[in-house]
């Protein structure tokens, strides 16, 4: 399926990546090319096939539902672009 400029704009929005209006045609073309390549999958008869959900058939381990870590606020915040008073700081969300 060919991706038009509106679809490219919408995908960029969903992905939270700013794409300048002038770059949308090129992006749409590239996405169309990649998705066109994927169209080959339509040739495969997948009737009755379950989608693969785990690589190795195994029961995932469970762990006890207990606290195993904590009290490391400084470490958690140490790489934040903006941390204040023990919190991550972001632009105002609610007016």
């Amino acid at each position, binding site marked *: 399926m060919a*991706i038009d400029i509106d*679809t*490219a704009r919408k*995908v*960029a929005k*969903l*992905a*939270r*990546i*700013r*794409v300048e209006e002038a770059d949308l045609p090129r*992006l749409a073309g*590239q*996405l169309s*090319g*990649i*998705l066109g*390549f*994927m*169209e*080959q*999958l*339509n*040739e*495969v008869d*997948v009737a009755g*096939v*379950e*989608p*693969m*959900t*785990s*690589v*190795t058939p*195994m029961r*995932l*381990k469970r*762990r006890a539902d207990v606290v195993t870590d904590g009290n*490391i606020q400084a*470490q*958690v915040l*140490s*790489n*934040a*672009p*903006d941390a204040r008073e023990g919190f*991550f700081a*972001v*632009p*105002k*969300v609610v007016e």
Partner: protein
Amino acid sequence: MSANTWTIAAARDALRKGEISAVDLTMSCLTAIDAGDGLNAFVHKTPEIALEQARAADARLKAGEAPAMCGIPLGIKDLFCTRGVPSQAASNILKGFRPEYESTVTTKLFEAGAVMLGKLNMDEFAMGSSNETSAYGNAVNPWRRKGSNVQLTPGGSSGGSAAAVAADLCLAATGTDTGGSIRQPAAFTGIVGIKPTYGRVSRWGIVAFASSLDQAGPMTKSVRDAAIMLGAMSGHDPKDSTSADLPVPDFEAALTGDIRGKIIGIPKEYRMDGMPAEIEALWARGIEMMRDAGAEVRDISLPHTKYALPAYYVIAPAEASSNLARYDGVRYGHRAKLAQGDGITEMYEKTRAEGFGPEVQRRIMVGTYVLSAGFYDAYYNRARKVRALIKRDFEVVFNEGIDAILTPATPSAAFGLGEMADADPVQMYLNDVFTVTVNLAGLPGIAVPVGLDAQGLPLGLQLIGRPWNEAEVLNYAHVLENRAGFVAKAEKWW
């Protein structure tokens, strides 16, 4: 020969006999690294950490308590989180990120006494086959075509690892492989690289690309070294729920060289249209070597092979779009400078536009699209069904008695940097044609250097084994290595 050129096995023996100290061995690598800046393989050097670890290794060696990796100087792919050391996944979005924690793989290697020389270049977020998507600029292949100065790609995504090992800047390196990112660069640089069975090595602390496909593995100068280092990297980790709680065999002990009576499958679907005659000839030589060693060679069919690449390029970007949603400019890494009145959405959008390179952006958007309402079934679910069929293809031949599968590792030798710049993104994806099936099916696969092409560049073959059977795969690889007698090295120009 200067010690940086040694294999792990040779260095281990020399260290244990006291013929060299870990500090001297490390120094010879640090010297080679400083002289190797032209390769752009090491992007963060950590000489202080290396020397401190080497001194500790010498103390352990003196005490007679020295595991195989004790005192062995390694390069670590930038995808691994290393405490206090930049771990950027070759992306601007993680610029300045210094993890407060250590990945399980590096923790295990350090506990075994290994020495970290620094962090290695790679494609951004491991998305690429040529190292050209790196925020650091590409690493360069130490190999050149005969009589040519054209700079070649070391492959990708573990291109810095491959270049560093091939150029003897370190004894070995860690790599990761989501669609071929260990095996393709290993083949392009004439070294050995193994992607273990999915779940053999913990993914904890490795920056995630596509979680159902990613596996870490060693990139080394010999099959024996791959066996030694894989042993140190493997094992169950409660912090990765997909890591298998299985005993880790002694991989090195499995290198008996005896493969008599084993059955090697040759899949006809890997004989691609337009495959270069040299790759075809290399494969035929490999088949002869296996026969000569007493294995039975049998033609097999893996009928869904053709659909592996398109399935991969749905599944991997889908998983990447979820995994990379965490880079939002809030908790770590880059945050864009905001204009007056910008809210949180603008912060996300500007941060991600500035932080991610074009290929990563493309893959996130492809993933977003195939997961979006209305397309989820048509693309993502269909790809997962095809993935099940690809896995079934392998199960069928293994059930029919095939012990391992021999294929080419790559469709060509290393190509020139910039040569693919104007190509369609799909052209670059074709590099993974022989390797992605193995990730989709979660199997172990190893690339072994077997010969040189007419231009003097290394070519490799790939062996694929049954799940959890790295030991046997390594033994087949060892046979191939012995018979191929590949000893060529890149001529030093850097």
